[in-house]
């Protein structure tokens, strides 16, 4: 095991997992001296009945200070300020965020406003502007994918001023993350598939990106093993409680890994594809992940090969020669996409040309790939990718991912 000349690793979030983890929230809040939480969520989560499950689990253990389900899909400063007002008016002393990335971002933003008594959130944007502990924040993720229950970042948009504020601080880490199988039981197969592949992309990119370290590696290996073992089975059988819990745990492990080692080309091109064409993040991750591995293979083939045992198990590992292990990892991940495509009757796309909108129209026309390749150059995720990306390389990867054919690695400009 390689000890880097220097590394940092941090995940201060307490993890509580189980089929009845939600019931532990009142005791956890009491430990932190809180008894009146504000629940922040969105309409989709509430409509799926998940907030009812949370409220029922809290029962008489705490007084709920309010339930706000108006978080928009894109975080919004106005909503942050409105929810902060609700928090103050109802004399709340903690936040429970139930939902995905946008809910977590909004809850973190509200927490800054109420803890710092801030009128201008902008004053706390950037890295390390927060200097003290915020109010207790309990994160309850409702997808097994984003890992935002363990990340120290929040993005809040000011739609009036057309500003996107980024906040980074260890104080933004939730106090506790609750991984409860009931929160993902109703996720439809198509969403289960793409969010699970999002988690896998965190684990895998976290394993090969430049800031990797022994602890992020260990989290990645655990995550890869759990996600590979359970993703296709829970997609096939959504009622698989143990599988759902394992996926929630796997996604959380993956979140810890990538938030320490950072992410690379898969996220870089994925962010750009999402921004230019509106493709859901998990779909981008699923499609691009095999290409990210192929693109970086000449730089870190041995590292990628180390993923084979946790992903494929002993039999496949033994039958694969050392020289072929990295490529076998890629084909295993392609195999997962293929299987998810079959289970979802084709809804889980295998390549960019297969991504369709609700009316069945293609979302990523081939002629838009140059625009995505250019947009990707502006995204920060390139910094931690092992190979230096440029426009030509980006386009090369995107073309292959559009067609769904393996990357011609001889054409990569090797830096």
């Amino acid at each position, binding site marked *: 095991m390689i*000890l880097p000349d220097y590394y940092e690793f*941090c995940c201060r979030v307490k*993890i*509580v997992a189980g089929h*009845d983890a939600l019931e532990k929230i009142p005791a956890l809040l009491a430990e932190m001296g809180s008894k009146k939480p504000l629940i922040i969520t969105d309409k989709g989560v509430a409509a799926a009945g998940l907030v009812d499950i949370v409220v029922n689990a809290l029962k008489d253990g705490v007084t709920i200070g309010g339930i706000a389900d108006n978080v928009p899909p894109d975080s919004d400063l106005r909503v942050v300020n409105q929810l902060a007002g609700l928090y103050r008016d109802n004399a709340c002393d903690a936040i429970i965020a139930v939902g995905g990335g946008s809910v977590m971002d909004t809850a973190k933003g509200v927490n800054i406003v109420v803890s710092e008594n801030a009128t201008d959130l902008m004053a706390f944007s950037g890295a390390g502007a927060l200097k003290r502990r915020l109010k207790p924040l309990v994160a309850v993720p409702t997808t097994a994918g984003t890992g935002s229950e363990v990340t120290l970042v929040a993005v809040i948009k000011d739609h009036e001023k057309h500003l996107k504020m980024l906040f980074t601080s260890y104080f933004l880490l939730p106090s506790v993350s609750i991984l409860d199988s009931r929160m993902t039981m109703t996720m439809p197969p198509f969403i289960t598939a793409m969010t699970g592949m999002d988690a896998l992309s965190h684990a895998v990119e976290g394993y090969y990106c430049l800031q990797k370290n*022994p602890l992020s590696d*260990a989290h990645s290996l655990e995550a890869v093993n759990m996600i590979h073992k359970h993703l296709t089975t829970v997609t096939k059988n959504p009622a698989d409680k143990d599988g759902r819990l394992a996926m929630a745990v796997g996604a959380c492990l993956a979140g810890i890994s990538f938030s320490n080692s950072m992410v690379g080309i898969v996220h870089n091109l994925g962010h750009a594809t999402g921004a230019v064409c509106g493709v859901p993040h998990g779909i981008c991750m699923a499609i691009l992940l095999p290409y990210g591995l192929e693109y970086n293979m000449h730089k870190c083939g041995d590292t990628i090969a180390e993923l084979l045992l946790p992903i494929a198990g002993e039999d496949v590992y033994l039958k694969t020669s050392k020289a072929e292990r990295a490529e076998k990892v890629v084909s295993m991940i392609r195999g997962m996409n293929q299987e998810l495509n079959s289970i979802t009757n084709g809804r889980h796309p295998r390549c960019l040309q297969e991504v369709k909108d609700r009316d069945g129209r293609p979302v990523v026309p081939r002629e838009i790939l140059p625009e995505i390749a250019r947009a990707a150059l502006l995204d920060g995720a390139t910094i931690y990718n092992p190979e230096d990306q440029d426009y030509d390389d980006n386009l090369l990867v995107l073309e292959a991912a559009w067609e769904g054919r393996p990357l011609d690695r001889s054409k990569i400009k090797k830096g």
Partner: protein
Amino acid sequence: MNLTNGFAFTCPFKTNSGNKALEHLPVELAALNAFKPLIITSRNLTGPRAMRILTGAFGDSGMTMGFFDDVTDTADLNIVEKIREIFVKGQYDSIIALGGGVVVDVAKIVNLAVSQKIADARQLSPATAIRDPLGPFVVIPTAAVTGMETSKYAFLNGKSFDSVHLMPDLVVLDPRLTWTKDGKTIAEAGLAAFGRTLEAYIAPDKNPFMNAYAVTALRFIRENLTDAVNKRCNKKVSLAIANAAAMSGCVISNTDQNVLNRLGQVFQNIVHVHPGVIIGMCLHPFLDDCMKKDSSRISSLLLPLGGDDKYAAMPEAGRAGEALRDIYEFSYEIYRALKGKIPRTITEAGIPQYLMDDIFDVMNHEPDGAYLRSIIDRVSGGSIKA
């Protein structure tokens, strides 16, 4: 791993490890909103060199700091009270513990006293409620550690404190400080961390978050401890052991499986023997018992200790035996390199019968006291009566 019963995991400390890690300290302290730390250390136990390196690292950061370097191995709550007064009078806002063992135990309890605004630290007891997160607390280990520095436990003069809030916010592992010429010191730290993480790793109810720390610690120790003991000029291998020791503190704080840890602890408390000595001694009988109980638990050890190829190539039926062989070989190498500097039996350790009687008394109060005694019986070396 069976997740059905649910679990909780927490590791509140950040790890900064490697070259010039100390130079990041002012920035890290500022991120914890700390600008005036009190450094707690020991002239005699930690030595002046570590202090020089640490103060040098602050360089021209403009940070004011205070020192208390008078912690002794017999420290008690009187020392804690003395440091508490210095902290309050000097208006310090954070604590840095420089060193290992008792230095960090004292610092943890000072942090408890000053954060909870205790009027007289001598009144602290294991019954003291530790609720809110405490003030900013950094641990900077030297080579002479027990592995408990990063844990939720603190032991002082017979008093035992246990709270996740006692764990540091940050551990800084700098090769200038974690390196030592003394093979015995590093072997003690390595064996203590090895035993604790090994026991947690083979536990049936382990969780994957704790497991990530355990796997990493086990691999670091297996791959580096022999070299760290033999090639004493290699800073990187001793840094790997320091990493493993720090991780073991997280592991022991997140497991209920702690037979080896408790054995080490009781000897440390009563006869001031390093827990690594006792844990190293008891490893073989403990593993023999585990093997008899459920060999499948031992077989999984072959993965971190032997590596992917060895693990995959060995059929399941042979893995436990191979893992045990590997551990025996590994510990044989360590003890051979130490040339008798670490005792292998209680008799060799020279612990007299009357102190052993005290130790057995403590063990008798444990629910599994009979089992603990049965392990000690097997490493007594003949002359000790359990």
